[in-house]
């Protein structure tokens, strides 16, 4: 029986669920091909949910609901708030593109976006293996459908197939690992699993066996090497507006799940998963940065860049435990650096994809790097936003991406192990290689002559959000203290509970 229902913990999810259904119904009555009513309603819903989460987060309470199935803590609240905001930005950038390609005909884009957000929310606040799985499936099923939204477009359909097959396999891995742990510990509750493992009664081999599958499943979802193969194809094949959706907010959910599973649940096995994360990170940094250099398609390049950034984030996650000794300060430092990394990554990747979406005129997918030639002469504002994002992704100060890299490197060096310091040096060298391909895009935008003289026009909402988003990358670079403190605080409180 479920005692302690505590509806408060799930209000935002309920809002999303109800509004998802309402929007689907309202959409039936909307005739306009641009779906303005549905769009406004969706954005408003997400805005309300984001505000609600921010309110929860600032109140700072941690409480459990639904018989410990879900948890509402500062980390989760902030991540959900950011995910909702990221989704708003995504929809604002993506709508004109989708409208031009007749993807708004049925209004599914918005309903699916709401349900994907709901999936993320469930993942982020889950305190139980099954709930994590439910959230994950809700998110990924919505994403499969989104990728296939252009039914008549061959590349999209192929990408959706790949995504579905590999995604289902990853879910299988994860589920299998969870069932192993359930068998070993007798519980699906993350807290109970932790206690059972900590008690030390269970055979190590069984646990590690389950752990391997869980990490592999997570790596698949995150796109870490060697489970990264789907990322470039799916990012490339999906309609750009959808690439935005799968490349943005879900990273926050993936981070939350990793923390919940590995840190909240399996911390006693840290010495085991640490090694796995290190291998994933080393591979991701290498493949992401080296393969990225060879791409001529901007979406593929950003896909590889995602892989490398996930590798960097994993470095932060794995540096929290030193020699199997769990120390609250070190762990808080490391996990908050990873959280800061992933939040700023999403913040920076969104406008980068946003500019690609913006440039894609009807019937012409502007996604080759050469399509950006001379953008500065055509539209200095958008070129500026893109340049800021690219320099930030490359980790050049004073942009926010630099502090993200700095905090992860700091966590690595602070852990004091020689191996971690070597990893820091390795990561630095890899980011130098990465800097090359970001610079190349800047070069194309600023140094090359434009192929057309047409300027880039954008609706008012796109222009405003894009400018604001790009400015945020710069402003948070000048004053990163607030966001950093927020991440630290959230992680510290999440670990304390």
């Amino acid at each position, binding site marked *: 029986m479920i005692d302690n229902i505590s509806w408060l913990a799930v209000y935002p999810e309920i809002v999303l669920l109800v509004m998802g259904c309402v929007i689907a119904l309202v959409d039936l009555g909307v005739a306009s091909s641009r779906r303005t009513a549905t769009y406004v309603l969706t954005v408003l819903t997400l805005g309300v949910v984001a505000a609600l989460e921010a309110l929860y987060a600032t109140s700072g309470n941690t409480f459990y609901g639904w018989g410990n199935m879900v948890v509402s803590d500062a980390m989760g609240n902030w991540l959900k708030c950011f995910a909702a905001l990221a989704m708003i930005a995504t929809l604002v950038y993506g709508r004109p593109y989708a409208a031009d390609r007749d993807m708004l005909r049925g209004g599914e884009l918005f309903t699916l976006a709401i349900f994907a957000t709901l999936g993320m929310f469930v993942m982020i606040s889950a305190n139980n293996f099954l709930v994590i799985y439910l959230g994950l499936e809700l998110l990924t099923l919505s994403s499969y459908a989104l990728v296939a939204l252009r039914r008549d477009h061959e590349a999209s359909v192929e990408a959706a197939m790949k995504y579905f097959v590999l995604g289902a396999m990853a879910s299988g891995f994860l589920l299998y690992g969870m069932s192993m742990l359930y068998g070993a510990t007798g519980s699906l509750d993350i807290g109970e699993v932790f206690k059972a493992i900590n008690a030390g009664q269970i055979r190590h081999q069984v646990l590690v066996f389950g752990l391997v599958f869980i990490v592999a499943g997570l790596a698949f979802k995150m796109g870490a090497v060697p489970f990264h193969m789907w990322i470039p194809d799916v990012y490339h094949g999906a309609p750009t507006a959808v690439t935005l959706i799968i490349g943005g907010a879900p990273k926050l959910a993936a981070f939350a799940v990793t923390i919940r599973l590995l840190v909240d649940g399996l911390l006693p096995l840290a010495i085991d998963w640490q090694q796995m994360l290190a291998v994933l990170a080393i591979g991701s940094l290498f493949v992401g940065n080296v393969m990225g250099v060879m791409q001529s398609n901007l979406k593929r390049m950003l896909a590889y860049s995602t892989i490398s950034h996930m590798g960097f984030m994993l470095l932060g996650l794995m540096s929290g435990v030193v020699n199997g000794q769990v120390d609250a300060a070190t762990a808080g430092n490391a996990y908050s650096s990873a959280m800061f990394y992933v939040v700023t990554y999403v913040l920076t990747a969104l406008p980068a994809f946003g500019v690609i979406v913006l440039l894609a005129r009807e019937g012409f997918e502007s996604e080759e790097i050469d399509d950006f030639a001379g953008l500065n002469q055509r539209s200095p504002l958008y070129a500026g936003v893109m340049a800021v994002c690219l320099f930030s992704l490359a980790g050049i100060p004073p942009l926010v991406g630099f502090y993200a890299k*700095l905090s992860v*490197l*700091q966590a690595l*060096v602070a852990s004091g192990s020689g191996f971690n310091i070597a990893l820091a040096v390795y990561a630095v060298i890899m980011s130098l290689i990465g800097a090359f391909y970001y610079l190349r895009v800047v070069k194309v935008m600023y140094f090359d002559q434009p192929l057309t003289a047409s300027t880039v026009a954008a609706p008012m909402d796109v222009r405003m959000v894009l400018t604001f988003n790009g400015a945020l990358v710069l402003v948070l670079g000048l004053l990163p203290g607030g966001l950093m403190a927020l991440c630290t605080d959230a992680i510290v409180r999440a670990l304390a509970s």
Partner: protein
Amino acid sequence: MGLLSFAIWTPIAFGCMLLLMGREEDVKAVRWLALIGALAGLAVTLPLYTGFEVGTAAMQFVEKAPWIGRFNVFYHLGVDGLSFWFVPLTAFITVIVVIASWQNITERVNQYMGAFLILSGLMIGVFSALDGLLFYVFFEATLIPMYLIIGIWGGPNKIYAAFKFFLYTLLGSLLTLIAIIYLYIQSGGSFDIQAWHQLPLSSTAQTLVFFAFFAAFAVKVPMWPVHTWLPDVHVEAPTGGSAVLAAIMLKLGAYGFLRFSMPIAPDAAREWAWLIIGLSLTAVIYVGLVAMVQKDMKKLVAYSSVAHMGFVTLGFFIFNDLGVSGGIVQMIAHGFVSGAMFLCIGVLYDRVHSREIAAYGGVVNTMPKFGAFALLFFMANCGLPGTAGFVGEWMVILAAVKFNFWTGLAAATALIWGAAYSLWMFKRVYLGAPGNANVRALKDINGREFLVLGLLAVATLYMGIYPKPFTDVMDASVAQLLQHVAQSKLH
């Protein structure tokens, strides 16, 4: 906000304003706004000069405010005798560059001027940062405007040069970043540079830190053999870019040696001094010879820059006050002289569109006023007494002779090479009968160019004839630095 903050943010604010101006804006308005911004930037550095207290090694005009709480980073600014002169120098060179680029940049003027003003503020930030991370942020941020300046307004091979510049310097800086993080952790969570100076470090740690910093600063100076990016970049960069690069940006690296390498790792600095001295002498002699055979004027001056910066590092690492002060004086003097040399090349390039030495000859016949200025700067470049170039070189050579006779002798040969390549180039470009029709059609410099070169000429002569104000300021700080470096951190 203190004076230093104004010195940093005034040009940046004007630069941002320029960037925000649309393309439809009048080019004239853009230029005037840039000039006002540069002059305002210079004006706010002037109170620094009158307010600076000579005779103390303490940091002055200190500002300190929390910046990033989580890492204990402070917005911490201040100048002492080592860094003081570079603040007004940067602002001064920015004014010069804005005036010098007045007419020869016609494309995307607002972005060009904006980039220079922002660059100016960032470089002043490097010279006044007392927080390790703040320093790094300013140091790295300068790459972005410079990359764009080279890449957008540069010559035919500009893209190669822009990438080479960016990636070379970024690689060096990233290793430095690791060292900065290491020091942060060693010091128990502080980015305060002055606290790092007091940090006890083991011999191995010092060596590693020293070389991690060396990676960034040696590339930036640039020291032989990591200097190869400089000639490529100079050749491709627009005139203003070359002038700022030579006059200020190279000094960021040399300044880093003074502020980080020597005081933080004094034992390693002394232990490896032979290496730096060796590389510096190689730069002075070998690169001096390389300069002599160049056919491209900009390349020649670029190699001559490497040789002159060799004097700076040589002066620093022989560890006596004359050497260190000489190095700093040489940095300032090179700022005036090399900036002026590149602007002279720019004057010719604007008219003939060639940087080949062979494309000229007898320029002085058609451009007598310009020839007179050029002669002065060439003389300063080869260290003629009475010009700025003489003071620093003379101090360094004197210090080197004190340190070791043969080192001094080797360094002194630089005067010969300097004279040889400078005068030979002067002869080939300026003297004799007009070489070709292009030269015969040349018009002498206009009032604007006269103003630019005149200002630099005054500075060069003033510093050469009466260097006391320059050296007075740095004496106490240099003495304190050397005293600090002389004490071993190993016990």
